[in-house]
């Protein structure tokens, strides 16, 4: 509890300050030695009464019987606490919007159907007041993802403690996004204009995308061009599998097409959404297609579906051996990501599997698992400390967080307003 009270004192001293005074932390100087903690590595392993050492932003040692800390190390005694890899929020508009209903704050959706050269990273606003409310719930990295049209552009992974987007960039332009046109013919509702053949319209659009990729493939086989095409250039790394194609779709037919696109072009495809992925787990496994599952806290797709279907889809993918991670929609909602994992655990995942679904699995799917996603020596010190089980709101109270070894300020606008009005009413 010592640290909690320290941070409260810190808060009190800042009570009159706006969150403008919540500074990004400076680089790690001293070696930090966490001890007596329950360490959840992120790969399924749990170390009781464990220690974790990191310096210069990298984890140097994790285990239960580590040598005593060096004399100049900063030692944190985390008796009774739980240490986790920093959580990673995939597929979010964080930093691309501030007030959803206010158009001028929205920077996630461009005009046009095929815009692969559009980059989310350059619009990522590190000063968004939403970011701090995520950090203080243990979310330390996010895949900032554009929307709109069929191919809205590329996403980048950012770390959530930065002065500007350049500093924030953790994996630049790691993925291109493709929103599959819906292959569901909606029932004809009076008052709604629905094309008679929505499926055909969707197939035509899909064909445009295929044509685009075919032409891009050809274009990229030649170095010299009379006319430069930025869109073709932008997808170059899909063909070399240096970047991934996230295909956003939910229904079986859509996913079958996604798999087919992966085969035709040899892309490294990830399915984003996958509400009905539980129906085709074998196929996904066979084709090595990873899935970023849409949020578990969703209604079942159909009234006949099992009432808890969205809650248990993760467990079905786990059982089938499909690589998947969990997501949450939107931006401010990302602070509830740990609870998506909690629910997935209630409905079939083990707790450590559920944790992997918001840490290591996510890192693998985003292509950043060499440096983060688990608490293993050599990886970045992206670490979250909670007083209890991070996936259960009853005990998910974050006391410390480190990004690349830097201790992150966990204050945010909400805590400040809380303090302000506790002050008003004379509450302790």
């Amino acid at each position, binding site marked *: 509890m010592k640290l909690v009270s320290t941070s409260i004192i810190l808060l009190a001293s800042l009570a009159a300050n706006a969150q403008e005074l919540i500074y990004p932390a400076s680089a790690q100087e001293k070696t930090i030695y966490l001890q007596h903690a329950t360490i959840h590595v992120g790969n399924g392993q749990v170390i009781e009464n464990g220690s974790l050492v990191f310096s210069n932003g990298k984890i140097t040692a994790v285990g239960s019987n580590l040598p005593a800390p060096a004399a100049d190390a900063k030692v944190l005694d985390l008796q009774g606490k739980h240490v986790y890899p920093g959580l990673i929020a995939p597929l979010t508009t964080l930093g691309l919007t*501030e*007030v*959803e*209903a*206010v158009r001028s704050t929205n920077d996630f959706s461009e005009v046009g159907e095929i815009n692969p050269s559009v980059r989310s990273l350059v619009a990522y606003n590190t000063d968004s007041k*939403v970011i701090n409310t995520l950090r203080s719930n243990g979310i330390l990295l996010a895949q900032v993802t554009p929307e709109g049209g069929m191919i809205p552009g590329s996403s980048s992974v950012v770390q959530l403690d930065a002065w500007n987007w350049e500093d924030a960039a953790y994996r630049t332009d790691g993925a291109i996004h493709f929103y599959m046109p*819906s292959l*569901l*013919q*909606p*029932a*004809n*509702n*009076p*008052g709604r*204009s629905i094309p008679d053949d929505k499926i055909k319209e969707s197939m035509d659009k899909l064909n445009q995308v295929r044509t685009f990729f075919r032409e891009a493939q050809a274009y990229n086989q030649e170095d010299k061009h009379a006319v430069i095409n930025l869109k073709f250039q932008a997808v170059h790394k899909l063909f070399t599998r240096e970047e991934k194609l996230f295909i956003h779709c*939910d*229904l*079986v*037919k859509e996913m079958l097409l996604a798999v087919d696109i992966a085969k035709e072009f040899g892309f490294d495809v990830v399915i984003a959404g996958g*509400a*009905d992925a539980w129906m085709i787990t074998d196929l996904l496994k066979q084709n090595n297609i990873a899935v970023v599952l849409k949020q578990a*806290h*969703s*209604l*079942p*797709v*159909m*009234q*006949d579906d*099992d*009432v*808890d279907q969205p809650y248990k889809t993760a467990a079905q993918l786990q059982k089938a051996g499909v690589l998947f991670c969990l997501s949450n*929609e*939107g*931006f*401010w*909602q990302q*602070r509830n990501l740990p*609870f998506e994992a*909690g*629910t997935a*655990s*209630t409905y079939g995942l083990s707790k450590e599997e559920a944790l992997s679904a918001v840490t290591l699995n996510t890192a693998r799917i985003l292509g950043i698992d060499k440096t983060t996603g688990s608490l293993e020596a050599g990886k970045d010190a992206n670490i979250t400390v909670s007083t209890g089980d991070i*996936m*259960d*709101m*009853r*005990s*998910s*109270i974050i006391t410390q967080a480190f990004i690349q070894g830097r201790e992150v300020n966990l204050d945010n*606008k*909400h*805590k400040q*307003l*809380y303090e302000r*009005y*506790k002050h008003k*009413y004379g*509450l302790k």
Partner: protein
Amino acid sequence: MSLARLCLLLGGLLAGNFVHAQETFPVNGIADKREGCYAFVKATIVKNATTTLNNATLVIRNGKIVSVGTGPVPKDAVVIDCGGKYIYPSFVDPYSDYGTQPVKKAVSSRRGEPQLLSATKGAYGWNQAIKSEVNAAAIFNTDESSAKTLREAGFGTVLSHQQDGIARGTGVLVTLADGSENKALIREKASAQYSFDKGSSTQDYPGSLMGSIALLRQTYLDAQWYKTRPAKEGTNLTLQAWNESQSLPQIFDVQDKWDALRADKIGDEFGVQYIIKASGNEYQRIPEMVATKASFILPLNFPLPIDVEDPNDARFVALSDMKHWEMAPSEPAAFEKADIPFSLTASGLKDAKQFLTAIRKAIEYGLSEQKALDAVTLAPARMIKADDQVGSLEPGKLANFLLTSGPLFNENTVLYQNWVQGQRYTIKDEDFRGTYTLTVLPANATYTLLVKNATSLSLIQQDTLAGSISLSGELVKLAFPVKKGAAQLRLSGVTGAKEWNGTGIDTSGALIKWRAVFNAPYTKKDSTKPASQLAIGKLYYPFNGYGWETLPQQQDILIKNATVWTNESEGKLENTDVLVRNGKIAQIGKNLAAGSARVIDGTGKHLTPGIIDEHSHIAISKGVNEGTQSVTSEVRIADVVFPDDVNIYRQLSGGVTSSHLLHGSANTIGGQSQLIKLRWGADAEELKFAGADPFIKFALGENVKQSNWGERQKVRFPQTRMGVEEVLTDAFTRAREYEKEGPGKRRDLELDALVEILHSKRFVTCHSYVQSEINMLIKVADSFDFHINTFTHILEGYKVADKMKQHGAGGSTFADWWAYKMEVQDAIPYNANIMQRVGLTVAINSDDAEMARRLNQEAAKSIKYGDMAEEDALKMVTLNPAKLLHVAEHTGSIKAGKDADLVLWSNNPMSIYAKAEKTMVDGIIYFDRDRDLELRQRISTERNRLVQKMLAEKKKGTATQKAAPTQEEIYHCEDLQAGHQKSLINGN
């Protein structure tokens, strides 16, 4: 050829029936007055569904029936021998739009500017959907092509009206005779017609089903008031017409079984018994239909089998749709069995010619033939008070009758003629099919020919040989080889009065003569189906995959050895038993005796009061917002509760036992709300929380000032928070003045509700966000001396908790929503905590069908954000909302005497790892995780059975319909709030 056949043939050939001359109309040429006297002899005459006369005579003259039975044949009658034929009354369709103009439904669009008043020009009422002044007689035109189709389906008379609007004006009774409207129109005003559908009205109000209902109710009141000719109103032709049409049969068209009950309820309120034009799914709720005491007009547009060949498309068709396909044809039989008066209509059929086919299907599904005949003849005639003119064959009634080849509902029976007002309309020429004996001269050779249809015949001999035939009026051509491989005999001639005869050329080229005599009619091979083929599934209550086959009954239950969160001063009791008896909590203690109660082991489990959602929009039909005016206190969620919503079941699976169903937040003073208990399977009335205080929804801020509705929505007052205050002040000022008005005042449903608020007979729950508006509403309420019961959403409640406390208001909030719009920028997850610590009664609500399944977890977030005690957190979704809704005496805690609304959890209910294992309302376990597994299996089995059945239908060649995704209605206060679920199916 028999004489009867001959006569019929001749009849068919008489082109151009005589037309009754009309006295006032001048004649161009020589007057040709005819009485049209016919005698149909030797017929089997079915006078009505219960009386059949054999070898009887029907005499008609001047378009009316003169005698039926053994009456003398007048000398001047044209005699028609109908031996072997049947005569039936022509059908009466009580629900038709024949002879009116088709109506274009208005497409509502938020893109346009609002239209606040009617666009109908003239001295009519304020609302464009109330069209009582429409007189179908005035717009009626005979329409030969539609009339032909309907006559061919068997109809002689229809009650027609313009099917547009909520009040549709009067219907006109017409026959299906061609030509003069003057003759066809037999009663100018025969009915008054209603629906819930505003049709072509371009006016914004009403924008919801509950708005349509309120509009109808208010119009009844206005019309009553208008009878006093209030000077203030001037002349209102709409209300005048409304009043004038009240003595007519009142017919209400509904689109759903629940709408039938809604319509009937309006009728009950104003002393009107509607005849209900049903939708086709009423069989799902027969006891409720009986209770309406209404007569029904049943459509026969049974759904086609769904094309489920593609399993990925079939996935999106709900079991309820599949079952409806299977069960819909049983609707008439279900009504007959329940002894509900009904008639049948062709309305809704794509092709009226399918009418008889559909009736035969209904008969196959259990409808008796006698009832079927009654339901298309005398029953509709009586229903619309036209049985003095049509519906049976009686002297004096119109000469509207059918001539058929046999009993009407036999599959092979042919409708030959439909006589309407004494005019003959040929449907099908006499059947020439059969065997003939052909004699060729001079050789005097005879052949036996079988004529199978209009183009082919066979020569019957050792080797049956194929030939051809062609008939054109009375002219006939035949050609066939007399021997296999031989040249053809070619014959040409006429189908004369007694025999076919003519000339021809034989195989050698010589001229021949011939005649052919009819021997026997053609008989198709019997295609009767085995009677036992009809196997249909069971009804579910509600009609959903998770519904009950029989509604559950209360039972006594003892929960043993659980951790009991009482929400009372005893707090949390370990290893405790709770006894439930007669739906109430009977006893709490240790080692209680079970007696006859069912024992449930609660070891290691937690028992809590049921969750109560203060802010819900589930189980609502056709619109949650009547956001078309700033004040709509006249609309009531109570009118549109939707018991089939699967979200009731889903929320039971999350431990919810009561939900406060609120109007949306599109306007300042919204509609009246309804508290329900989640009694899955019950109907709308049974879902309601009996005796609970009535509430109403208010709203403030961005939604009511339309901030996020686009640039065109800048017309409706208010557009600012300044204006919102004035809307409130104005409304309550009007309410006060209204209350003081003396005798003769116009009763105003909108103001009635506000007066109730002023007298604390109705309580306010107000959607609100920012502190200024919260403060404002408190001041307005104070100035009118009433009180705001609950501020809902109330994301800045923490800023003015002291003022709320002083006013006596509670807060019902979200756990952690923010950032989705400007007015929630200062929302914080510590809000509930601060409000609670200041001393308010605080609830956590969902406003979301998904989140409501996890309200316990939403409450638990206050443990994380601000360290609330676990038991206090639970109270925020149980006892506190019960208090805010004034039902804490009945529910919200575990205390002897309270309702047994209980949840048994697998784990600490404040933990994300807890699952509701059993959820009980009034001592009935409505959700049980074990039973749920059985239901999943049942759904799978039943789906598979129906899919196979539909595949078989398709294979048989039955037409199918596309597999369209089944839609669900999912509502929130507003569309804008992020964090809301977007359904993949609805994509709203």
